[in-house]
Structure formats: C-alpha cells, structure tokens
C-alpha cells in the first residue's frame, strides 16, 4: 500500500493551513511524482546506487503537528554560533519550529530568516517568485517531485539589496519521526552578503528513516553567500537530496557540505555560474564507515564567460562503506575565459571500503582552463612514525593525520566551534 498519495498531499497542506496556491503547487508536483518511475541502476545517474533494499512506502509523509514534543536533542544544537554577534537561530523538530530568534539589528536591516511555512504565510510573493522556480525544479527527478509534493519544514533566508548581514544565521533541523522533507531557500539580493549554516541531524535509530531535502541558494549580482550544510543523521536514514546554487554577475558562493551520517545518501549538487565574473567554490567533507553508501553527483555549470568554479571533495572511508563521486564541469558555447577545477581525494582507512571517482568535462567553448584530479590514498606510515617519534601514541597520531587531511577544507566552515564538533565526530568514527 502506498503512503505517498494525493490524499496525503491534501492532508499535509491542510494541517499547515496553507494558501491554495501552495496546495496547487504540491498537487502539480505530485502528478509529476506519480508519472516518474522510481530510478533503477539502469539510469545513468543511479548506476552505482541500488534502491532495491529501500521499502519506500513504509516512510510516508510528515504531517504537521506530529512532531515529538519531548525530543531529546544534543544541547549544542541551536546555540548561538558566536559570542560577540547575535545573528539568527532556528531549531526545528520534524519541520516544526521549537526555538527561534533573530537579532534586532538584522530585523532592522530587513533580513528575513524564518522557517519555510512561516515564509509561505508571511512572504507569499517572495516564495512564489523563488520557491523551486530558479533553483531546483520538481521535474528534475522522482525525489525532486516527491519533495515538491511533501516538503515540510526548512529554512528561509532573504537578504535585501545591499544589506550586509554581519552575523551568521544558524538553522538546526532535527528529525525525530524519521520522515524529513526539509527545504532550504536562501535568496541574497544584489550587493547583499550573508552566512548561513544548516545542520541536519537525528539520533541513531533502528527503524529506517527518510530525508528528502532540497537546498536552493540564489546569489544575486555582486552578492556573497557562505553556506554550510552539515549532515549528521543516524545511520538508519536514507537521504535523497537535490541542491542547486546560482550565482549572478561578480557574485560569490562559498558552499561547504559535510556528510557524516545516513545509511545511504544520494545527492545531486549543482553550481550554476550565470553571469560574467561569478565565482563558486564547493567543498565536500565526508567520512563513511560501517555499510554507509554515499553517492554524490556534482555539476559546475559555466553559463557565462569569465567565471570561476572550484570544487574539492575529500573523504575518509572505513570498513565496508562505499563512496561514489561523479563530477561534471560544463561550459556553454561562448563561455570563454572560464576556470573550472574539480578534485576528489579519498583516504582509504580499510581495504574493504570502496571509492569511485568519476570526473567529467563537457566543454563547448575554446578559451577555457578546466582541470580535474582524483586520488586515493592511505595513511602515510612515515608521517605516523614521525608523530609517534615525538611521544604521540599511534591512535592519536592516526587521528591527527586524518584531521590534517580534512583541515584545509574544515577551515572553510566559518565557525571554529562547528569545525571542532565535526573533528570530534571524525575522531569518534575513527574509533
């Protein structure tokens, strides 16, 4: 019996008291969802990720209001990121806001930072304009359509023209019921600047859970966004994400992804450099162990000349985990003088783990510089001996070496407290 039904869409929308236009949006997405077959390993993008073990219908949608009120979440989540500057904080459990604040300074500057449902109610014009219109489209795949129909919870950030938000926005999306459909939409208008950190997490659980998320990062002309999406779900969660950043003329998007959790993750991440002078950097940090399966499809699309994209994804793999990274740099005809770089480096901590790196280029312009690199390595025994020769026990030496592998990327996460927390998780996973 299927749980993702038209009835369920209507019930979800009603429970959220949504306006008719959003229900209509959901129903259209649902039609596409129904018309789209479940991907199989015969589909190119899914060749290395098999969903046979996924009993999809056992999840069902997350209906508003069924969030556990007595959820125990780690105390550090939802804390202010800096001691000197108050920005915005948002904590949601199963898509329902539990804690929220935004500094008076940011409010006075016209910054909007709230949960997505609040945004639908209070800022319908902005949502109609930007929600799954410019970033991720519901037609991109089965899971993009599913999301369009059943999205619930998530983060909305809007920074008006020329506003420089000098304190970070921090959003925590905790899952308790194992049915998570978060939507992040960040719109940074011309000349504006912002920092947004999204943390997705849940406790370890026995029952399989689902995260079907969308992230849309829209950076205007001369605007700048630093975005970090940090995922640490329990290893019972199956994750299917569509994520897209777009950058306008001379705009900048600094996009960091950290993946520690889930049983299986399939993520489509696309960076589009739309206008001359756009710059985008994608940094990936991941550590898999046990039987975790992580499959990332990245695209760097140069839609205009004089654009720069720089992707570096680094991962450590243990035990029987598997990581697939498939990257593509595309340059449209006429996108001259572009500079595109992509690299994937994996550190194999066990022989039983497996990593596939598949870089790709589709270049239709002639004056370009596009390079890619991928490398697989092991811990360097000379390095470990050197550390040990100074009195550092082997276990600590291994931890330092693995942390060192990630350090240059970790520094791209703007807050040391969060860096330390992820390093802590890495040390835990080294075991």
């Amino acid at each position, binding site marked *: 019996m299927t749980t993702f039904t038209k009835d369920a869409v209507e019930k979800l929308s009603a429970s959220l008291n949504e306006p008719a236009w959003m229900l209509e949006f959901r129903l259209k997405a649902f039609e596409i969802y129904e018309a789209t077959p479940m991907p199989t390993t015969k589909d190119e993008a899914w060749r290395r990720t098999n969903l046979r073990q996924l009993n999809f219908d056992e999840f069902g949608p997350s209906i508003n209001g069924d969030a556990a009120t007595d959820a125990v979440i780690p105390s550090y989540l939802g804390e202010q990121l800096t001691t000197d500057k108050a920005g915005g904080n948002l904590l949601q459990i199963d898509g329902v806001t539990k804690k929220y604040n935004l500094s008076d300074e940011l409010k006075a500057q016209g910054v909007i930072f709230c949960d997505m449902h609040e945004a639908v109610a209070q800022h319908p014009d902005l949502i109609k304009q930007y929600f799954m219109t410019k970033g991720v489209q519901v037609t991109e795949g089965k899971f993009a359509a599913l999301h369009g129909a059943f999205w619930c919870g998530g983060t909305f950030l809007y920074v008006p023209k020329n506003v420089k938000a000098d304190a970070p926005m921090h959003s925590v999306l905790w899952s308790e019921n194992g049915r998570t459909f978060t939507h992040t939409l960040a719109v940074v208008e011309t000349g504006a600047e912002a920092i947004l950190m999204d943390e997705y997490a849940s406790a370890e659980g026995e029952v399989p859970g689902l995260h079907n998320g969308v992230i849309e990062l829209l950076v205007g002309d001369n605007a700048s966004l630093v975005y970090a999406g940090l995922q640490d779900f329990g290893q019972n969660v199956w994750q299917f994400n569509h994520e897209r950043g777009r950058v306008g003329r001379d705009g900048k998007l600094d996009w960091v992804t950290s993946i520690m959790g889930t049983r299986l993750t399939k993520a489509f991440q696309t960076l589009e450099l739309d206008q001359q002078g756009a710059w985008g950097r994608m940094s990936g940090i991941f550590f898999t162990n046990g039987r975790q399966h992580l499959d990332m499809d990245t695209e760097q699309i140069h839609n205009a000349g004089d654009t720069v994209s720089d992707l570096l994804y680094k991962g450590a793999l243990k035990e029987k985990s598997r990581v697939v990274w498939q990257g593509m740099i595309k340059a449209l005809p006429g996108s001259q003088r572009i500079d595109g770089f992509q690299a994937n480096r994996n550190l194999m901590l066990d022989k039983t783990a497996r990593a596939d790196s598949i870089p790709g280029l589709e270049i239709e312009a002639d004056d370009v510089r596009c390079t890619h690199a991928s490398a697989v390595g092991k811990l360097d*025994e000379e390095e470990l001996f050197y550390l040990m020769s100074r009195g*550092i*026990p*082997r276990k*600590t030496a291994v931890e330092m070496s693995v942390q*060192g592998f990630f350090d240059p990327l970790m520094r791209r996460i703007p807050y040391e407290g969060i860096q330390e927390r992820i390093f802590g998780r890495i040390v835990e996973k080294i075991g």
Partner: protein
Amino acid sequence: MSIALEIKNLHASIGEQPILKGIDLLVKQGEIHALMGPNGSGKSTLAYTLAGHPAYEPTAGQVIFGGEDLLEMEADERSRAGLFLAFQYPAAVPGVTLAKFLRQTINSRRQAENPEDKGISIPAFRRLLTEKMDMLGIDHKFAGRYLNEGFSGGEKKRVEILQMATVEPKIAIMDETDSGLDIDALRIVSEGAMRLYREMNMGALVITHYQRILDYIKPDYVHIMMDGRIVESGGPDLALKLEEHGYDWLREKHGVVEEA
C-alpha cells in the same frame, strides 16, 4: 636520575639485508658523542633502529635505556622515556599546524602520566612556544603553518631543534642535522642544540659526515662506523684526523672493502 643509552652488540636488518653488524656504544647524559663514517656504513640505520621505525628490524643484541629494554618499546614510548631523534629528512604532516603538533607532544606526555590530564593551557603553551621559537630565531608565523610542509631544509632542521627544546629529552640523536644547511643556519641550529644539551644536561649522539658541525657542538667522544660496526673510537682529535686523512687508513687498518 641520570639516564644512559646502552647499546650492546646490536644487529639490525632492513628486510633481508643486514645493516648493523654488532654495535656497542654507551651514551650517558651530559656526554656528547659524534658518530662519523662513510655513506652506507649504517649510521642512519642505527638512528632509525633506536627510534623504533617499523621497517628496521633488530635481529640480535640489546639496547638498554634508563634501565629498560628499549627494543621492546613502541616509538612513542621511547620518546616519552626521553629518547629523541632529530631527523635528517623530517616528514611533512599536511593539515597539522606546528603549534597543534607541539601542543600534542606535550599533552601526550602529560596524559601518559595521568590519563585525566586536560593538557597544557593555551596561554601557557603560547608562552612556552614563543620563548623557544625566539631562542632558535624562528618566525612566530611558523606556529600556524602545516608541519614541515613547504619548509626549506634549514627551516626543517630548526623546527627539529624546536621540537627537541619542547619535549626536553634525556638523550638526543641528531641524524646529519648539518646536511643541507648554509653556514649561518648551521651556526644557529648547532648553537641552539648545544645550549639545550648544556641547560638540560642532555646526552647526544651526533651523526655527521663533516667536522664543520663539531666546531659548534664539541664532542667528548668520536666514533667511526664502517660496514655496520664501530671500528674506531677516540677523542675530538679523531674527527680532525678524519678530516685530514679521509677513511682509507681506517679501511686498511680494519680490512673493510670500499663499496663500489
């Protein structure tokens, strides 16, 4: 308590290849020993074997350090017991800053004593680091750089001595610390090392090809190694004699065939 490094009839191999063929040497705290010898005589093998490199396998003999069997200890235990090796070619450790690394060398010592120890405080560590860096003329900016990554030969050697100053060993082995250094760097590094030896009453085994470093680090004893054995021991004069006459007289005297 004064500690000694006592090497008795040490044999060691790399893979199937025997390199050390019976080394006997006693280095006490407060003494400086120079170890000289032609390329391939086994000097660096001795250094690595003593430090506990996994590729160097002791096959016979004994090494007693502070009354304990050194060869039974892991590399990190040897270091915490007070043995230090200044590497000829220090490894780069990408992603680990010099400051983080040095702090961990201190904390690993404290935590070996007391597992509950929270480690040296950041202000105390900063003071210590600044003082030691100034002594060796190391730019403070190095603290934030990744260990040995992109360091010049001279910078690496200075940082080796900085590590020695931080962990305060009882006995130090310096493996060709003079190689690749210009005359100014050699002076700074050797004077820094010499000062530490004296201040901390360290013992030292200084491995070198050249008399030059011994102008700054004055040895009490000089040993000559050939073909995996110490063939001649004497006072500082021996190093000067070697500088003047080369190794041929020793090869003749001890019947060592020069390697092609």
